[in-house]
């Protein structure tokens, strides 16, 4: 950011020079009233302040005050957060935050009053992480609203929010929220340290921070969860995680996480434990199948066709008999098509996108089969695996799954089933080595922590969730006390 540093090096000597410099922008106002009984001067960015507040709360008080000094004025203004300063960098910073600088007479000292305007859209239901059951409350781009949402859900004195400013140009406010005692100090220290060490110019979204905070930035696996659901954020904070809220971003980051949590939809907690466990297992199978379905097709049809029973083989051969390509070309063609559709659907305006996505899928799919470019069976496989990949509750994980199959297809072409197994070993090793803020990624599977299994691949009833996950190593390990303890179990006809 050379242009910025160059600008900053020409530091204004005094207030007038600074005002002259800032006046080059059209939204900068420097208004001086000498005629009235009470002369005053206002300096502010018209685009940042709330004009209503200026005219209603500020100007009448100044006019009627007849105060001779800024200190007097500070005493009577009905607004909090007023400061008097003559430090130019501070004044400039405050002006850019939406403060008004007031002077009664020329000089270096100004009174800074915060009347900044907050414009934010209304709350809306989460669009990316949709759920049938549960609260429909999503984060918005305004940091204060988001903090309010969290605080209302956890009205507890131990809910701490620590602020830090990141970005040399954007000066983005970032808040780390956690419940003290539940979150481990070590994790909080790690994240605060990493946030302080961040060096960047403009933070456009929380995902910028997410990518820069990750333990292993080479990995394709998300090491934090991006979420817009407030119930998910507070739920994870209650496990012992922290949430990072970013000004201007409707996504919060949750960390530390483990791999299993990426496969958990928060709706699982709203369904009964047995139903939720069943869906979790279905989701896990779907994800595994989604990754290996097409690579297995390539591996088996290229090298190990004798693996199939003769009847199934006949079906396969008859569906592939007209196709002039090898399985790998066929698979690549169709997988890329699906990813094109997905990408086009994501970029297009919603109304056009949906229709075009579905119609395009059918047209391209059937046409490709009729033109003997791909086989029916592959079309079914690819469609199913695409469907399965979208069952993942975390969007970034969906992308990971879609990405992973391409190298896997290559390895399947290279070494057949052995290639698939070897690449599987590579992913396994990678996941064993991966950490999220120093916590093992595959926990509670490896290192095995059987006490944490009550809410992992399956979910047990809430009465059996008395203890917090060992994974987060918080001090408060008990979630709640079990009040009604039965002395003996009742027999039939005793209830």
């Amino acid at each position: 950011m050379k242009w910025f540093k160059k600008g900053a090096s020409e530091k204004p000597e005094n207030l007038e020079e600074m005002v002259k410099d800032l006046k080059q922008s059209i939204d900068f106002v420097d208004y001086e009233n000498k005629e009235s009984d009470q002369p005053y001067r206002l300096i502010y960015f018209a685009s940042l302040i709330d004009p209503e507040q200026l005219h209603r709360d500020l100007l009448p008080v100044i006019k009627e005050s007849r105060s001779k000094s800024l200190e007097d004025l500070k005493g009577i203004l009905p607004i909090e957060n007023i400061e008097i300063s003559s430090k130019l960098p501070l004044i400039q910073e405050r002006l850019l935050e939406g403060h008004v600088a007031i002077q009664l007479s020329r000089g270096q000292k100004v009174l800074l009053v915060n009347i900044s305007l907050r414009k934010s859209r209304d709350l809306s239901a989460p669009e990316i992480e949709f759920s049938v059951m549960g609260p429909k409350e999503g984060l918005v781009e305004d940091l204060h609203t988001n903090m309010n949402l969290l605080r209302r859900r956890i009205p507890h004195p131990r809910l701490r929010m620590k602020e830090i400013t990141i970005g040399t140009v954007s000066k983005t406010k970032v808040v780390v929220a956690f419940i003290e005692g539940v979150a481990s100090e070590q994790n909080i220290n790690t994240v605060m340290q990493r946030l302080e060490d961040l060096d960047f110019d403009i933070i456009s979204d929380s995902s910028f921070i997410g990518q820069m905070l990750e333990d292993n930035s080479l990995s394709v696996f998300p090491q934090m969860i991006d979420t817009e659901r407030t119930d998910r954020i507070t739920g994870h904070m209650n496990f012992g995680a922290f949430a990072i809220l970013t000004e201007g971003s409707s996504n919060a980051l949750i960390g530390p996480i483990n791999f299993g949590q990426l496969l958990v939809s928060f709706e699982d907690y709203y369904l009964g434990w047995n139903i939720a466990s069943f869906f979790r297992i279905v989701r896990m199978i779907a994800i595994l199948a989604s990754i290996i379905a097409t690579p297995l097709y390539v591996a088996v049809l290229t090298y190990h066709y004798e693996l199939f029973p003769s009847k199934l083989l006949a079906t396969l051969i008859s569906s592939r008999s007209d196709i002039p390509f090898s399985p790998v070309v066929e698979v690549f063609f169709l997988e890329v098509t699906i990813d094109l559709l997905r990408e086009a659907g994501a970029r297009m305006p919603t109304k056009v996108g949906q229709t075009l996505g579905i119609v395009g899928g059918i047209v391209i799919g059937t046409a490709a089969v009729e033109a003997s470019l791909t086989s029916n069976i592959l079309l079914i496989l690819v469609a199913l695996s695409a469907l399965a990949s979208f069952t993942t509750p975390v969007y970034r994980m969906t992308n990971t799954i879609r990405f992973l199959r391409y190298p896997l297809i290559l390895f399947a072409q290279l070494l057949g089933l052995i290639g698939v197994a070897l690449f599987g070993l590579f992913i396994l090793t990678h996941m064993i080595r991966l950490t999220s803020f120093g916590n093992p990624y595959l926990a509670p599977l490896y290192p095995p922590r059987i006490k944490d299994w009550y809410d992992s691949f399956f979910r047990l009833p809430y009465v059996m969730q008395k203890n917090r996950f060992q994974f987060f190593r918080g001090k408060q390990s008990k979630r709640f006390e079990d009040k009604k303890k039965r002395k003996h179990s009742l027999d039939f006809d005793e209830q």
Partner: protein
Amino acid sequence: MSDLEQGNRNDLLISPFLIMFIIHSNQVGVGVLGFQRYIAAYAGNDAWIVVIVTGLIFHLFIWMMYRILSDGTFDIIDLHNKWFGKWIGSVFNLALMMYLLLGTIVILRTFIEVIQAWMFPELATWIPVALYLLLTYYVLAGGFRTVAGICFFGVIIPVWLVFTATAPIKFSTFSNLLPMMDHSLKDFALGTRQMTLSYVGIDILLLAYPFLKNPRSSRIWAHMGVLLTTLVYTMVMIVSLAFYSAGQLQQSIWSTLIAWKVVELPFVERFEYIGITFWCFVVFPNICLTMWGASRVGKKVLHIKQKYFVIILIAFVFTVCVMVVNRDQVDYLNTLTSIIGTYVYYFYIPFIFLYSMIWRRVKKRI
């Protein structure tokens, strides 16, 4: 003091019960796919008794090893140096390294022999060897916790294959096992000697011991590891003896793989392909553990950093594996390992056990 004392020791250590997976995964390798005929050649239908007896002997070895290692701050490399002095100790340590490397080479090359025999007859040896060794480097770079993780998943992921043993039962005649105890003591002894190769691998305990939290409490898990191996081998042996006739078994080089052919699934005809694919996960921990052990020796004796020494080891293993070109040479390697393994277990471990006992009596220290 041990080199683990430096730095954050706790972050490098693993739970004691993981030693079960480490020992079990280092014992079970390619051997399961075709060990039956070597044992049955001597003990015939009593081969399964030989399997159990050898398992019991290995429990004894575990016991000896825990006596040798005692309090857990030293591995066998340190102990060699303490007991025999720097020079003779180094000779012992380097011999240990060569033994571990031989283990890597045998298991990797034999498995690739299986792949070549069953799935890819024209596959160049160097491709899977290179891929496996690159993966090994990636694992070792993650430290012992990653190695232990690979052992854990190397047991967990293929564990369902145990159920495939039920498939041949339909075609089995269990009267094959009768009459029991029909062989001479000499046959049993020779069978046990043959069986040793399949059980070899608990030696990794001598090196992994300082990496365990509360190493003393891990003893029960080490025994569980050997027990698990014994159960697997016994099951495979009994099923094979009942499934094959005596003559047929001698004809089958890869008896387990052939028996897998009878597994029937609605969409899978030749199940052994799936078995071999999953065997990639069984073989990998062996390679990682032996390479890790060898690199530990390099670090402690030759004072070369593990991250560089592993590269040398990989180059060495790669070269040797590629030089082995046919079935006879693979067989020779296996026989050689069998002989060396026999000496290691039946002479070296009892010797070092007695030596440690006497040393501690006389010197009153570790």
